[in-house]
């Protein structure tokens, strides 16, 4: 049997299964969201009214404006920290360079919402920094509102710009810079006219990731917003208030979020399409030694940036060991927060690990097969799968979860409990991490390896398991670890789906923060940070190119 002149084989079957899974878990939920946004909640008729409402009512328009405002300024802030940091670490001899990039990676993978509430503990209305200055008689602005969100985004997302730009800078052929200098450029002109344009594709990719993540972020504006609403908090609240009816406004706002992410990505692709800088690595850049005040300033900036970004996580760990009485810190150190965690949230810890591990098991299996289909099969279906792997990056967690609920709470999968929905949500949202890492591993393996195995009589699956799989195993494990980190830290989608039996650690932390239970939140966050850190350590041991594994 053939399809379009191609013999059907094992991999045709795999391609079919993968496509079916992606259609059910990815395309249909997103399609449902799209369809619902054109439905009138009361009558069930087709309408454009939802969009008219979003684009005319001040409430939504302000949310849109707020989202773009904090997204853009957060991205600019992240670039202003990330680009100099990348340049300094790539071009100057720095004391503790590994330390700097390790901290940046830890900041990158730490649960996103921890930053927000740790800053409240420092700069909130009762934060210790605020109180310290108050005692000195100085009133400093609190963290709440747009500027706080922008600060958190800047410090949370700059590692993307930093690590991507740094990788690019280290690959720039030094001959270009030498040539510019030879033609009479000062070092500053050379940097602006030659180096910066050469690494622009990397900078813009890092910036676009910051922007898309800022748009999608729910935890930060939810915790720090205090009336400053962004589209993700509006979608969430709308979904909550529309429970029981059709969540039409929630999905309409969701569609706008998807549209913004896609427009941003398309714009970046367009800008990059005209730039191709193939660069042979014949002449690698050399690092310079700085002296005097320049040396001190650069060191202060680099170490200061990563330390301040890391500060929230340190504060959280510190707070978790403070002595508490109920929600009140009573001075001194103690383990009460952990005791409360054991009493109040053991099932949250169990659930988090269960759901994340189950999702990662699926991700590992699918990543192995999907990466083979993407890399080795030149069919249209393989191209479609490759494209679909980008979609989860663009769809905010709140949106994907609303799609899941509206699709699977009714219809043929309606029997599924919240636990299964969460596992499948984590699976589909974090699958790209596994696939990307495995794919780049597989691209380095010559196809003749599998062909040799097949030629020696191994059927396709045997050849894959005996030859391909052992060779891509490091990439597969790194991808699985990355998807585990991001799955166990998932908050926004979980908040839509969870019920009393399926609390997870991030949800418990979020609820504890809303209740002012900072000690309990800190203990849970510390557990999350610990297993995140353990995964990072494992990736460091396994991956050849440490830093790029996290991007």
């Amino acid at each position, binding site marked *: 049997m053939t399809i379009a002149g191609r013999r059907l084989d094992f991999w045709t079957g795999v391609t079919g299964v993968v496509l079916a899974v992606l259609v059910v878990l990815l395309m249909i939920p997103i399609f449902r969201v799209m369809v619902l946004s054109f439905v009138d909640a009361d009558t069930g008729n087709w309408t454009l009214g939802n969009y008219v409402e979003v684009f005319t009512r001040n409430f939504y328009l302000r949310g849109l404006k707020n989202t773009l405002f904090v997204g853009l300024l957060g991205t600019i802030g992240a670039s202003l920290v990330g680009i100099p940091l990348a340049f300094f670490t790539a071009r100057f001899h720095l004391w503790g360079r590994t330390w700097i990039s390790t901290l940046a990676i830890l900041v990158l993978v730490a649960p996103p919402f921890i930053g927000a509430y740790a800053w409240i503990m420092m700069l909130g209305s009762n934060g210790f920094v605020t109180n310290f200055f108050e005692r000195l008689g100085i009133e400093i602005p609190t963290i709440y509102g747009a500027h706080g969100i922008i600060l958190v985004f800047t410090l949370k997302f700059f590692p993307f710009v930093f690590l991507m730009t740094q990788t690019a800078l280290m690959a720039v052929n030094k001959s270009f810079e030498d040539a510019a200098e030879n033609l009479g450029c000062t070092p500053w002109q050379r940097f602006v006219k030659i180096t910066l344009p050469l690494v622009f594709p990397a900078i813009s990719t890092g910036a676009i990731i910051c922007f898309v993540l800022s748009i999608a972020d729910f935890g930060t504006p939810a915790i720090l917003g205090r009336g400053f609403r962004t589209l993700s908090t509006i979608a969430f609240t709308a979904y909550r208030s529309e429970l029981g009816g059709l969540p039409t406004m929630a999905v309409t706002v969701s569609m706008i979020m998807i549209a913004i992410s896609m427009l941003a990505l398309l714009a970046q692709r367009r800008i990059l399409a005209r730039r191709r800088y193939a660069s042979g690595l014949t002449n690698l850049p050399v690092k310079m030694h700085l002296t005097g005040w320049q040396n001190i300033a650069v060191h202060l900036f680099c170490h200061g940036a990563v330390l301040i970004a890391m500060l929230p996580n340190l504060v959280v760990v510190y707070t978790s060991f403070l002595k508490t009485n109920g929600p009140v810190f009573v001075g001194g150190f103690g383990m009460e927060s952990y005791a409360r965690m054991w009493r109040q949230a053991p099932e949250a810890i169990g659930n988090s690990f269960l759901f994340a591990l189950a999702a990662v098991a699926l991700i590992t299996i699918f990543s192995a097969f999907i990466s083979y289909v993407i890399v080795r099969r030149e069919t249209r279906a393989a191209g479609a799968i490759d494209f679909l792997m980008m979609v989860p990056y663009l769809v905010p967690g709140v949106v994907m979860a609303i799609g899941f609920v509206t699709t699977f709470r009714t219809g043929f999968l309606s029997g599924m409990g919240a636990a299964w929905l969460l596992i499948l949500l984590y699976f589909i949202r974090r699958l790209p991490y596994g696939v990307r890492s495995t794919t780049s591993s597989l691209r380095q393996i010559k196809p003749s390896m599998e062909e040799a195995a097949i030629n020696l009589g191994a059927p396709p699956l045997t050849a894959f398991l*005996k030859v391909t799989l052992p060779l891509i195993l490091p990439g597969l494990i790194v991808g699985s670890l990355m998807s585990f980190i991001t799955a166990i830290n998932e908050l926004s989608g979980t908040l839509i789906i969870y019920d009393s039996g399926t609390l997870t650690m991030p949800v418990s932390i979020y609820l504890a923060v809303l209740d002012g239970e900072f000690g309990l939140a800190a203990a849970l966050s510390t557990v999350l940070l610990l297993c995140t850190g353990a995964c990072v350590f494992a990736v460091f041991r396994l991956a050849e190119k440490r830093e790029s594994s996290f991007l």
Partner: protein
Amino acid sequence: MASVDITGLRKLYGDVVALSDINISIPSGAFYTLLGPSGCGKTTLLRTIAGFHDQDAGSISLDGNPIETLPAHRRDVGMVFQDYAIFPHISVRENVAFGLKQKKVPRAEMDRRVTEVLDVVQLGAFADRMPHELSGGQQQRVGLARAIVVRPKVLLMDEPLSNLDARLRVDLRAELRRIQKDLGITTIYVTHDQEEALAMSDTVCVMHQGVIQQAASPLDIYLMPANRFVATFVGANSFLALTRDTDQLRLTSGGALVSHKALGEQGETLVCAVRPEVLRVAPGEVQAAEDEVSIPAKLSNVSFIGREMEVLARTDSGEVVKSLARPDPAVIALDPGSAVSMCVRRDDLAFFEDSETGRRLA
């Protein structure tokens, strides 16, 4: 050991014809080489036989049994890869045993056969090494051992020597041929190196743009190229335009008579081909001998490369003629632009229709 019969094989990539009506018949035990420039379809043909590509039409049979619909892992043809494709995560011994394990050969027999074949390729001492500890040449021997240990009906080799350095290439090619003869295994060999093809093969099959140009013994390919493409690719012939003068053919440049017989149709343009090693170069104007043709030309470049000198000269009508001859100090001393005469025996000339794959005229 099996005979191979390929009939009417066709393969398209979209609108591009990769293989067009390939018909090949290889007797059992023969060494059959597919020769051609890159993109000529030789590797596509080999991989289609191995089952890595699906043909659009035609059949492939081993000993009369069609295999073209079998999946690649059940075709029973061994393959040696250009990039060796030695599995890097298992030892040499396990690499060689891989195919035997697939065939579920009993343990004792497997060990015996692996040891035997490693001795044949002179790697007995390396059985427990990991592949990265071996040189390129040794890795390719593992590749050969791994392919032949399962006793395939046919052995396919895809430019197996092209990643090795020149010296090793010559050594290994003799060894390959010796092992192939000892085993008597039917072999299809792909290469773009004409010297390799001529030195190893029973039959050389020259391909161009997915079409077989000529399949013949090395000597016939070299001395009696069937068309202009074969003459260019294998013999490095130079081509000279001809002018028809009633029933005779004369060189357009210089006007020397090259044939008394009328060849081809009236009005058809023909060219004359000459191999570099039959051209003699002399300074100035030289009177041709009775059975010779003298072509006046201007010297473009002389390279003295030791055993011989390579002379490039340009005729009055602009054709570039190449000669490889014994070094002559008088010629090497000439300045570019000097007048030279290129002399060749009339019997050493061949005539072709004037197109890329123009037919040879008797």
